C-alpha cells in the first residue's frame, strides 16, 4: 500500500473561508492509502514546503497530494519540493481547492463537499502514479534559420556570434527582405540600407554561417536537438564561387520583365541582381524569362562574363543538414489592394501601394529618389495616404491591425515633405496607433511641423476626373462628406502572412492562426517559442510588427537557441506516450492520429509494433484514446489513473 501525505492549504483565507478544512482533513485521514493529512496557512511558503519535506521523512511518504490552488500555478513548485526531499517529483498531484472550488462556490457546504471529493480523487490517482525520469536527448550543435530578412539576419548573427554554426536559407537571390526596399526607417529616419547592408555582408562572411540563397527548405523531420533538414538550392545558373559581382552580364541581357524588388515600377533583366547592394552580389538567371531557356538561343551574358561564371547546365541541388534548433523568420506579404476596387488600384496609375512609394522615394529606386507620379512623371503637388487598406476590415477578411502602417505612413508623409516642400499632404486614418518609443512624437512632428493633414475617416471611393484623383471620404470629426483632389494616392495595404505560410507550418508541425501567422507557445510568457520544442519564431511571420520588435524577437530566439544548444543533452518532461509492446498489434492507428509524427514503426519479437519517439511526442494522448488494444499509455495520465479518479469520486456517499 502507498503512504500518501495530504497537505491542505488555507491560502490565507482564500480557501478556508469557503471550505471547512477540518472536514477535508478528517475525510482524507480515513482514506486507505493516506499516511498523514495536515493543513497549513500557506503551503507554498518556505515553512509550508518544509512541512511537506518533514512529513515525507517522518512518514516515509511515497506520494503527495497538495490540496491548494491550480496546478497550473504551483505544480512546478511542489514538484521541486518533492525532489528536494528525495522523492520522485512526479509522485505528486494537486487538488484544485481554490480556482475550481472556494472562489467559484455559492456556499460553504457545496465547496466543502467538492473539496473532499477532489482530494479523494487525487489520492486515488497518486496511489497509481509511477516515478518518472526526465528524458535526456542528445543535441546537434547547429541551427537553421529560415528567411533572410532583418529578423533572420539578426537571429543568424546572434547565434553564430555565440559560437554555434548556422545554416541560413533564403528563398530569393539575396538577403535583406523587405527592409532592403526602404529608403528610411521610422521613427529616426535613419537610412535603411546603411544599417542593413553591413549586417548582410557580415552574414555572408561569418565563419559560422552557411548561407544558402535562392533556396528553400523542403523537408524537416526529427525532433528537438536532432532535426533533419532537406533544403533545395535552386539552380542559379551563376557559379557563386567564380562570380566576382562585376555586373557586366546585366548590361547585355536583352530581356525586360517587371522588377519584384521595385514593386513593378521598373524593369529588370532575366539575369538579375535584385538591388545593387545584394548579398551575395552574384546575380541569378530567372529561367522563366531567360531567352536561352525558352528558345535555346542567346547566351549573351555568358559571352561577356569575365569570370566564366555563367553555368546554364547548373541543376537544383538538395542538401541535407542536421540541426538542433530552428528559427523561422519568413516575414510577410502584402494584402492585395486590388481587392479594394473602389480605390481603383491597378486601374488608376497614380494610385499606388506604399511599397511602391518606398521605391519611388528610394535613392536607388527607379526614379533615383525623385518623387514622381507613375502616369506622367509629374511631381505630385497633392498627395493622399489612405491607412488601413486591408487592415481592420472584417469585410475583406482582415480584421486585425497591421501595426506598422500608421508609423510608416507618418514616415512617408515626412519624407514627402522633405522632397516636395510645397505639397499638400493628407492622411486618412481610422485611429492613429503610435505606441512605441518616440513614435507618438514622430506622428506629432508630422502633424505639427511637417504640416501633414490627418483626417479621421475611411474614404469610400476614389474617382478619376480630368486627370485628378478625387478622394471621397467622411471627416468623422466634422461629421461631413469631404472631397480631396489628389495627384497621387498611396494605399497602405496591410500586412498579410506569406502565401505559403500554412504549408511551411505544416511541414514544421507548428501552429498558425486563421490568417497564416505562426503561433507562439504563449502570447505573453513564451512569445518566441512554438508548440514544437526547438522551433522558434522571429519577425513578421508571427504577426505584424516593426523592425525593432522583429530584431528583438530575433535576438530572443537566438538566445533560446543558444541556451538549448549549450547543453550536450536536453531534458524534457517525461509526460509522453508509451507503447506496451506485448499488447500492441501493430495496427498503427496511433501513427494516423499523431499530429507530430511521433509514432514510428518498430519491431518486437518479429512483429510490427508502434514506437513513440520520446523527443517528438508532445504528450497530448490522442493516440492513447485511439488505441483499441490498450497498448498505448500516456504517462501521468494513464487510463488506470484517470479511471481511478473517476471511480474514487463515487466510491463513498458523501453527506452534503
Amino acid at each position, binding site marked *: 500500500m502507498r503512504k500518501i501525505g495530504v497537505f491542505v492549504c488555507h491560502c490565507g483565507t482564500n480557501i478556508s473561508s469557503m471550505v471547512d478544512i477540518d472536514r477535508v482533513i478528517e475525510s482524507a485521514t480515513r482514506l486507505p492509502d493516506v499516511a498523514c493529512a495536515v493543513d497549513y496557512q500557506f503551503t507554498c511558503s518556505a515553512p509550508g514546503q518544509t512541512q511537506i519535506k518533514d512529513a515525507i521523512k517522518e512518514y516515509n511518504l511515497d506520494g503527495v497530494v497538495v490540496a491548494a490552488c491550480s496546478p497550473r500555478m504551483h505544480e512546478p513548485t511542489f514538484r521541486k519540493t518533492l525532489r528536494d526531499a528525495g522523492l520522485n517529483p512526479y509522485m505528486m498531484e494537486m487538488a484544485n481547492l481554490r480556482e475550481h472550488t472556494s472562489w467559484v462556490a455559492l456556499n460553504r457546504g457545496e465547496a466543502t463537499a467538492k473539496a473532499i471529493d477532489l482530494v479523494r480523487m487525487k489520492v486515488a490517482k497518486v496511489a497509481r502514479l509511477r516515478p518518472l525520469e526526465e528524458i535526456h536527448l542528445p543535441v546537434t550543435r547547429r541551427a537553421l534559420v529560415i528567411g533572410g530578412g532583418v529578423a533572420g539576419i539578426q537571429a543568424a548573427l546572434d547565434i553564430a556570434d555565440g559560437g554555434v554554426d548556422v545554416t541560413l536559407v533564403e528563398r530569393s537571390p539575396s538577403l535583406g527582405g523587405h527592409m532592403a526596399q526602404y529608403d528610411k526607417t521610422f521613427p529616426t529616419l535613419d537610412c535603411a540600407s546603411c544599417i542593413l547592408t553591413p549586417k548582410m555582408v557580415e552574414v555572408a562572411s561569418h565563419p559560422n554561417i552557411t548561407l544558402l540563397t535562392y533556396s528553400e527548405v523542403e523537408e524537416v523531420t526529427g525532433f528537438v536537438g536532432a532535426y533533419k533538414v532537406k533544403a533545395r538550392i535552386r539552380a542559379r545558373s551563376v557559379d557563386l564561387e567564380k562570380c566576382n559581382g562585376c555586373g557586366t552580364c546585366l548590361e547585355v541581357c536583352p530581356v525586360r520583365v517587371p522588377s519584384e524588388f521595385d514593386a513593378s515600377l521598373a524593369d529588370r533583366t532575366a539575369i538579375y541582381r535584385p538591388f545593387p547592394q545584394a548579398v551575395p552580389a552574384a546575380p541569378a538567371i530567372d529561367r522563366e524569362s531567360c531567352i536561352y531557356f525558352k528558345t535555346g538561343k542567346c547566351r549573351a551574358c555568358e559571352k561577356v562574363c569575365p569570370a566564366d561564371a555563367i553555368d546554364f547546365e547548373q541543376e537544383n541541388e538538395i542538401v541535407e543538414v542536421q540541426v538542433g534548433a530552428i528559427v523561422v523568420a519568413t516575414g510577410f506579404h502584402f494584402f492585395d489592394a486590388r481587392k479594394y476596387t*473602389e480605390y481603383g488600384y491597378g486601374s488608376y496609375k497614380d494610385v499606388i501601394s506604399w511599397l511602391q512609394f518606398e521605391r519611388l522615394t528610394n535613392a536607388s529606386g527607379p526614379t533615383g529618389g525623385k518623387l514622381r507620379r507613375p502616369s506622367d512623371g509629374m511631381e505630385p503637388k497633392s498627395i493622399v495616404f489612405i491607412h488601413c487598406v486591408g487592415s481592420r476590415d472584417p469585410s475583406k477578411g482582415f480584421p486585425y491591425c497591421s501595426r506598422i502602417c500608421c508609423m510608416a505612413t507618418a514616415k512617408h508623409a515626412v519624407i514627402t515633405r522633405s522632397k516636395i516642400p510645397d505639397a499638400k499632404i493628407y492622411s486618412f486614418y481610422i485611429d492613429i496607433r503610435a505606441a512605441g518609443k518616440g513614435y507618438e512624437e514622430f506622428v506629432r512632428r508630422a502633424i505639427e511641423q511637417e504640416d501633414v493633414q490627418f483626417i479621421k475617416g475611411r474614404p469610400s471611393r476614389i*474617382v478619376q*476626373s480630368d486627370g485628378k484623383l478625387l478622394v471621397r471620404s467622411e471627416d468623422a470629426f466634422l461629421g461631413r462628406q469631404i472631397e480631396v483632389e489628389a495627384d497621387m494616392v498611396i494605399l497602405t495595404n496591410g500586412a498579410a502572412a506569406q502565401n505559403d505560410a500554412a504549408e511551411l507550418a505544416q511541414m514544421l508541425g507548428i501552429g498558425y492562426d486563421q490568417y497564416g501567422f505562426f503561433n507562439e507557445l504563449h502570447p505573453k510568457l513564451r512569445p518566441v517559442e512554438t508548440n514544437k520544442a526547438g522551433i522558434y519564431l522571429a519577425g513578421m511571420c508571427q504577426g505584424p510588427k516593426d523592425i525593432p520588435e522583429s530584431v528583438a524577437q530575433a535576438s530572443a530566439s537566438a538566445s533560446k537557441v543558444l541556451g538549448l544548444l549549450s547543453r550536450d543533452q536536453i531534458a524534457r518532461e517525461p509526460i509522453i506516450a508509451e507503447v506496451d509492446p506485448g499488447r500492441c498489434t501493430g495496427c498503427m492507428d496511433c501513427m494516423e492520429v499523431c499530429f507530430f509524427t511521433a509514432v514510428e514503426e518498430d519491431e518486437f519479437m518479429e512483429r510490427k509494433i508502434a514506437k513513440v519517439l520520446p523527443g517528438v511526442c508532445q504528450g497530448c494522448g490522442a493516440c492513447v484514446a485511439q488505441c483499441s488494444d490498450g497498448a498505448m499509455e500516456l504517462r501521468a495520465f494513464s487510463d488506470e489513473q484517470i479511471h481511478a479518479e473517476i471511480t474514487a469520486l463515487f466510491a463513498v456517499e458523501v453527506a452534503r
Partner: protein
Amino acid sequence: MPRAEIVKKVPINDSYFLFRSCVSSSKYPGIETSTEEVFARLGIELEDSPEQSCCGGFITFTSLAEVTASLPAVARNLSIIEESGKNALTVCNGCHMFLTEFGHFMDHNPDITNKVNEMLGMIGREYKGTSHVLHMLEAVAGLKNRIKELITRPLKGLRVATHYGCHYLYGFKHDAVDDPYMPTVLEELIEIAGAENVTYPEARTCCGSGLTQVIIHKEEMSLPFLKRKLDSLKKIEADVLIVVCPYCMTILDRGQFKMEERGIEEYGVPVLYINQLLGLAMGIDPVRLGLEAHITPVKRLLEKLEVSNA
C-alpha cells in the same frame, strides 16, 4: 475574378418568380413590361403573385421604424416565393437587398426567425429559408449568350453610360456575381446590345438620394450629389444612361426635370432600365417597353436609333 466564372453561379431556369417592385409598378411600368417582353423572347416563363406586397424596405428606407420592423413583411414575401418553388427575380436593388440580406439575417438568427414565424403563423404562413432571390441584372448576365442571339437591331453608335446604384454596389454582397464595388456585368450587356460603352468619372457614385431618405427630404443635402453626378455624365455626351433599379431611375430621370425646372442646369439624358435597352436591341416596340412614362424625353434617343437603323 474572371467574368466567365462569376456568371456560372447564376441559376438558369425555364421559369422564375417575378418579384414586382412598388416603384416600378407605380412610376415606371416599362421596367416590368420590358422584362416580360425580353423574357418571352428568351422562352422563359415569369410567374407572379397578387399576394406579394412591398418588399418591406419602405419601413427602413424611410426611417419609420427599427430595421427589424421590416422582417415580417420580408418573411411573408419570401414565403410566397418559397411557395412558388421557383427562383425569384427582383427588378429593384432595394427589393434584392432586402430580401437577400434579411433572408440571410433570419437564416443566421433562429430566435428571431421563430418570432417572425409566430407572426406569420397568424396568417397561415411560414418562412422556411429555402428561396433564392436573384437580381434581374445578374439573371440577364447569366443569359447573355442567349440574349446575343436575339439581338436583331444592334444599337450601333449609341453612347451608353451606366449607373448601378448604391444598394447594388454596397448592398448585400455575400453572393454577388461580380465585384461588388466595381462591377462590369452591365457594361458587358451593353456591348452585347451592340452599343458603345462610355464611362464618366462619377459612374460608381451615389445619386444623393441616400441623404434624403424620401420622407425626411433634405433636398439641399442631396441635390449637390445629384448635380455632381449629372454634370459628370453630361460632359461625356452620353445618349442614354442605363440603370438596374426603378428607384435610381426615379431619382436620375425626375431629378433632371427638377434641375431644369429650378433653372440649375439642363441635361436631357434619358434614363433606361437594362431590359428596356435590350428590348430596343431586340426590336421590340418602344411603346411595349413603356418608354413614354419617362419624364426626361426619350425622343432624341429613338430618333438616333431610327437613323442608325435606317
